[in-house]
């Protein structure tokens, strides 16, 4: 999707949450079939205020406070989509979405396929996800592996303020269901961003190279992007010139951008918050190995959350991949020959 160019206006700091709100408002204004629904999205404006003001502006029929029932929220949204609406549902927190899994997997993901295109599911499921905000249990899960394991779902997660706007617009415009994972610890991250002149947004499924580098590629998404950027800066001091690829969309997966980068750098590390065993990093590492094996100077490594149920908030800093753990992993890429003799110095 390409947003129309607007006159350049003064850019001022905006948060990711504000960009998301703006995306919802613009989508609703552009298309009367877009309906926002979920627990607390109306009067309260969402617990993270992402739907703030929508009920007032568009009425309760288009921004609807629902009963507290995730399967019911998603299940009724399926019926609404069948009748031509474009529902945008909010699951208040990552782990709150689990009651809706049957609807998601048995119906949302496969409706187009089972009806051979006669019934489509143009709906967006917004899920604030991930840790790092001191949430209590069931408020910090990274559940992307579950969604990735389900054919028929697109899985999208922004890491920047601009992408939060653009990717959400693209998700709502998509004729297929999108699980839109919002990294909740980046809700309050800021960028110089003018909502009146949003950047062009690539179609879903395009990764972005956030930092050019030559000695190894960090592949990441969502909440781990700022951590990887910081790690890349720190690694520079130690002589590593790291490239950082932000996937933006886990499904569709952008093999081309990832492989082009890895073939250039010869080394890859996948970084994400969700647990490593059975996590997205395993799939990504396998894809890289299958396609870039002869370009690799070292095994593809992963920096992921531990394989534990999400820890209590006072311990989560030990679980979440941080700069130090990424740097320690980078050091393991050195293999036998000294990297300074080869590429990247």
């Amino acid at each position, binding site marked *: 999707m390409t947003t129309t160019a607007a006159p350049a206006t003064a850019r001022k700091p905006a948060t990711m949450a504000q960009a998301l709100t703006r995306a919802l408002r613009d989508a609703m204004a552009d298309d009367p079939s877009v*309906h926002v629904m979920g627990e607390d999205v109306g009067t309260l404006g969402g617990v993270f205020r992402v739907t703030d003001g929508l009920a007032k502006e568009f009425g309760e029929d288009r921004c609807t406070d629902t009963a507290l029932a995730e399967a*019911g929220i998603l*299940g009724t949204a399926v*019926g*609404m*989509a069948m*009748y*031509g609406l474009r529902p945008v549902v909010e699951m208040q927190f990552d782990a709150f979405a689990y009651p809706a899994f049957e609807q998601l997997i048995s119906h949302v993901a496969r409706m187009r396929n089972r*009806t051979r295109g006669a019934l489509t599911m143009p709906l967006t499921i917004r899920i604030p996800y991930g840790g790092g905000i001191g949430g209590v249990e069931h408020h910090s899960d990274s559940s992307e592996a579950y969604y990735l394991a389900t054919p028929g779902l697109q899985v999208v997660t922004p890491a920047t303020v601009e992408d939060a706007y653009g990717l959400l617009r693209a998700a709502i415009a998509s004729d297929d269901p999108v699980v839109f994972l919002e990294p909740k610890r980046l809700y309050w991250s800021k960028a110089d961003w003018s909502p009146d002149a949003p950047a062009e947004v690539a179609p879903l499924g395009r990764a972005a190279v956030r930092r050019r580098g030559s000695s190894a590629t960090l592949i990441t998404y969502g909440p781990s992007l700022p951590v990887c950027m910081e790690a890349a800066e720190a690694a520079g001091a130690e002589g590593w010139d790291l490239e950082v690829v932000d996937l933006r969309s886990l499904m569709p997966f952008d093999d081309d951008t990832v492989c082009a980068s890895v073939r250039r750098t010869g080394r890859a590390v996948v970084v994400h918050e969700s647990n490593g065993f059975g996590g997205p990093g395993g799939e990504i590492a396998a894809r890289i190995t299958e396609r870039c094996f002869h370009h690799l100077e070292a095994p593809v490594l992963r920096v992921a959350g531990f394989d534990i149920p999400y820890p209590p908030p006072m311990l989560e800093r030990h679980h979440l991949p941080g700069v130090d753990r990424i740097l320690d992993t980078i050091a393991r890429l050195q293999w036998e020959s000294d990297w300074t003799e080869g590429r990247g110095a």
Partner: protein
Amino acid sequence: MTVLEQPGSSRKKSSLAGPPPAWRPRVDPAPLLPDEEPYRLLGTDAAARLDSGLLTRLYVQLVRGRRYNAQATALTRQGRLAVYPSSTGQEACEVAAALALEDRDWLFPSYRDTLAAVARGLDPVQALTLLRGDWHNGYDPHEHRIAPLCTPLATQLPHAVGLAHAARLKGDEVVALAMVGDGGTSEGDFHEALNFAAVWQAPVVFLVQNNGFAISVPLAKQTAAPSLAHKAVGYGMPGRLVDGNDAPAMHEVLTEAVQRARRGGGPTLVEAVTYRIEAHTNADDATRYRSDTEVETWRSHDPIALLEHELTARDLLTDEFVAATRDGAEQLAAGLRERMNADPELDPMDLFTHVFAEQTGQLRAQAALLRAELDAEANGYTEDTAGADGSAEEARP
């Protein structure tokens, strides 16, 4: 009398001040509790007021439905259907559900409700593709406004609520009728759908076909409620208990519920008390969990026989009418037999056609792999299939 003033209510008057106003339960002027006995028309004085045209219409559909069930069951024995959950004995529910709806309305059937879909006008072969195994859903749901036959239990109920709600938001007077079995009422989606429907006052009718068993588990192990229709009370919608083998009673109650919904009166829960004469499917052995005596008792309360009694009393069940009805049903069966015995033509490449609106790179590569395999198969595996055309790199998923 409100719901909370029922005899046996544990709420006693107290000398304490009443609860704050926000705690007060909603008191609906409409009666919510169902009748104590299933509502019946056939065999009662009220049957006299029934329209003869309606009775003959119902009869024709019941006979066709019974024949359809028999034919489909026979097709499972011939290996033409993977499975067929018969609705023999429940035809009155199926037919009444279809006839209670107008063209603009939507039907949300479960896997046992092929008959309702056929009675609504769906091509009998298209109604069976799920069970034949050539595709999951063989028809365009928009054409007859019939949602895909739903295999997971009760999950189609919230879809019906959402669709009806969306229609009302658009200003269309469309009603959704959703069908579920007694076992399905125990699922969480049943609860959430009914709750949403009542809160939104959505134009939906929920039809529970209580046929006695969820595969082998009897109703007594499914619920402790006096009836499944009683469940409506807690949601704030009327519950109706009906004799599911009494076709005109089913038709009347469902039509009333549909009209009420169309007028903005909100949802209704209808429990049809009926019986599954056949086993759950051909894979089930019903003798393990129920007695022949029980089945025979229900056979004597057969929906077709009940209606024939009324038609006879009206001199409508003439030899001519019976023969014409039977011939029509035989033609339906013969057509079904003939078409189902032809092998469907399937294109394996369809596997990738409708996963996403826009094919992903991963699926394009997998489609190329399958294409190469199919070509190799067609060529009799004469060459090395992997990478014969140099596309192995691309074809690898």
